[in-house]
């Protein structure tokens, strides 16, 4: 009966997200995406720049994120901090985020405040005017942010080391927030050079989601953003690629603040590419099959139920990336189980998976959940906006975004096995152990 429910679901067409999404490009080549949702009198206004930490100059790690902070300081016409103050005084909230591939700014506010938001966002795209004092104080803030996120967190310090080992040549190996010693040296000029190089309409995506009409948004976008001249000398996003990895990399991170020993394994893996998302879709299934649900996945079943090898298992894959991404596994052994025993059990479980047929019932459960996630996604306006922003700053097209749910539905067991054989290659991997003392590293 349960199987019938799942099959009945499959017969239904996917919810048509596309009907609520309108896209166009301004004359200055700024792309615009409008997502309608009229349930609440709300708008989410976002500007995404196709510039992230992996685009930074060597020696200036963290400058993309540093500028993100400084964008809330003064412009020619607005005082330092006034941007957020105006947003708040209008009943809204605002923030920003930086990743390897993009930097994005957003406000969540009553829909009738959209013109004001566009006016202010367009203003700081062109007229940032930083004082040395603001730069010096904000550098202390990002160093405290690094303290909070990384220095005080042994797991984050370990991840930083493992990632640096995974990417020998590509800037994905450098932390988004920056290496501490380089953050300390970031100057006002470094930040402004970054700003001048990357902050222009033809390097940006505008996303407006909520209780708005596409034609109204278009008129406003033309009024506020359309008048900004395109940057003629936009830098080409040329990033170094990884050399072939020919040997497994291993490391042990020791920190007395670690309470629970664990191991992680990462493999270099393909990302979603324009018109070519099938391998990425198969990897989504592979992650779910190997370590999605602790109750029904391969690692969960074998290491947490059939045996008491682990207290935690997981697998993860995020195909949203401009360049090669990673496929990740992690295991936290049960008390009395060594890391090497846990790693052996993990490898045996994967070898067994490769040698066996994929359980059709598990395959259908994952397919059903992916389909349902498209319905649940409609309840999350900001999440929908995020999909388009990520995709369009990572070289995908609107069509790729709209094709993705159906591509996920069509993944076959054969495709999963094929991509698993390609990606799960120990010669392309980094295995990291995280322990409190050398005694635990056995």
């Amino acid at each position, binding site marked *: 009966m*349960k199987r019938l*429910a*799942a099959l*009945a*679901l499959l017969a239904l067409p996917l*919810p048509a997200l596309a009907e609520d999404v309108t896209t166009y490009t301004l004359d200055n080549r700024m792309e615009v995406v409008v997502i309608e949702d009229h349930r*609440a*009198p*709300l708008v989410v206004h976002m500007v995404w720049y196709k510039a992230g930490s992996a685009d930074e100059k060597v020696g200036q790690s963290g400058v993309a994120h540093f500028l993100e902070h400084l964008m809330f300081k003064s412009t020619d*016409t*607005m005082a330092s*901090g*006034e941007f*957020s*103050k*105006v947003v*708040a*005084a*209008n*009943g809204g*909230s605002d923030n920003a985020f930086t990743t390897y591939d993009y930097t994005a700014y957003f406000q969540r*506010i*009553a829909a*009738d*405040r959209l013109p*004001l938001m566009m*006016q202010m966002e367009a203003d700081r795209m062109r007229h940032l005017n930083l004082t040395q004092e603001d730069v010096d104080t*904000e*550098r*202390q*803030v990002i160093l*405290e*942010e690094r*303290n*909070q996120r990384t*220095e*005080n967190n042994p797991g984050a310090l370990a991840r930083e080391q493992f990632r640096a080992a995974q990417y020998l040549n590509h800037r994905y190996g450098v932390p988004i927030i920056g290496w501490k010693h380089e953050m300390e040296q970031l100057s006002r000029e470094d930040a402004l050079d970054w700003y001048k190089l990357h902050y222009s309409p033809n390097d940006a995506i505008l996303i407006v989601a909520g209780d708005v009409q596409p034609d109204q948004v278009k008129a406003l976008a033309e009024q506020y953003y359309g008048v900004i001249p395109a940057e003629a000398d936009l830098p080409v996003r040329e990033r170094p690629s990884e050399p072939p990895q020919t040997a497994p990399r291993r490391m042990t991170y020791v920190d*007395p*603040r*670690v*309470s*629970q020993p664990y191991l992680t394994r990462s493999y270099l893996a393909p990302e979603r590419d324009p018109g070519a998302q099938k391998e990425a879709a198969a990897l989504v299934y592979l992650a779910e099959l190997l370590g999605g*649900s602790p*109750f*029904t996945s391969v690692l969960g079943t074998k290491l*947490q*139920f059939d045996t*008491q090898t682990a*207290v*935690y298992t997981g697998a993860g894959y995020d195909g949203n990336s401009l360049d090669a991404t990673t496929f990740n596994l992690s295991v936290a052994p049960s*008390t009395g189980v060594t890391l090497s025993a846990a790693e052996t059990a993990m490898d045996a479980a994967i070898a067994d998976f490769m040698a066996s047929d994929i359980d059709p*019932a598990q395959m259908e*459960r*994952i397919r059903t*959940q992916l389909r*349902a996630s498209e*319905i*649940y996604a409609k*309840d*999350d306006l900001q999440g929908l906006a995020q999909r388009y922003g990520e995709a369009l700053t990572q070289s995908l097209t609107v069509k790729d975004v709209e094709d993705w749910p159906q591509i996920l539905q069509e993944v076959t067991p054969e495709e999963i096995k094929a991509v698993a054989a390609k990606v799960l290659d120990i010669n392309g991997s980094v295995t990291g152990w995280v322990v409190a003392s050398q005694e635990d590293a056995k």
Partner: protein
Amino acid sequence: MMMRLVFAAALSLVAATSRADVNIQQLTTPGGISVWLVEEHSIPFIALDLSIDGGASLDRPGKRGAANLMTATLEEGSGDMTAQEFQAAREALAASYEFNVYDDSFSVSAKFLSENLDAAVDLLRQALITPRFDQDAVDRVRQQVLANLAGDEKDPNSMAGKSFYAAAFGDHPYGSSLNGTVESVTALTRDDMIQSHRDLLVRDRVYVSVVGDISAAEVGPMVDHLLGDLPQGGPDLPQHVEFGLPGGVTVIPYDTPQSVVLFGHSGIKRDDPDFFAAYILNTILGGNNFESRLMTEVREKRGLTYGAYSYLVPKDHAEMYLGSFASANDKMAEAVQVVKDVWADVAANGVTQEELDAAKTYITGEYPLRFDSNEGIAGIMVGMQMIGLTPDYVVHRNDFINAVTLEDIKRVAAYLIKPDQLHFTVVGQPTGLESSQ
């Protein structure tokens, strides 16, 4: 200058739009359970939230951590299904059930596709009414809880909380972590799970909200089926307790580069007539925005932290006014002094009319934006019921905010903000900061 004008013009618009537009239906099921419903048929799924008064404070003597372990084991087998069978069934329906326990309540947040309504409610009912608590499941989850407890021992924020709440509340349940201790959790038995389930999951303390693709006629039978077989009556709720931690500083040495601090003193009840004034006051003092006094003084002007916040914590049996931030070891002492100065200034002088006006337009403008998703509305409606509000509160809430005057703020600040009673519990190696006697 241009922006200042836009800002002033925009203010007048706020009042016109700042009213939550949500149609709450208040129903009583045939079985007598009260339910709040918002129908929203544009997306084919349903969000269901419920909360039951009591929570982990009902742990029996010597059984600290029982409610937490019981709650985490609900999804590990029920009816005739083992843990893996239950989860496979849930995954096949693409339903999600989150079980949580807090000091004062047990809660469930569920969502499921409307086409799977009956099967998804059946399965959730099974977990709530007939959990198995198989010994192997209890033992497996116990290992996970013990791993979390080991993590708390080395996590600066958990260390600060443990010390702070123990000193503030002693033997009252609020004085210890609901996760329990290694000793208490190790000793918990399957019978303790059954007792905790009987104590916490009771029908006469439940609040329910439903949002989504379902009609009022369907909701009554659905909720009766889900909860009708829960027993009536649970143990007495804990007594009220005074916040017992005097002003001062506690330093807990820990080798880590950045110190963390939890600070606070006693607070104000949620049903106090002054609560709205206190809420506005806190928004100005340390609310979750970049403009608060704490953010301005500690972060924006001095770069001493990534974020500094304060929050009113009106629990069911105690009231606190708390705050937290983190600063490098060599900056924590200065940051603590800045917070003390902010506190003293507001206690003595209140806030400015400009600050009050800006806070009001923020609070009243932000309120209707909260009602932007089925899941969000379901959570808000259970929260409202738990503190005794009626559905028309969403219409009048902004009027309550707008009625607060500068004089009210000054009067409330004079007794709520107590600079001499602030206690700072710091974990790290802060330079120039020592425990007071």
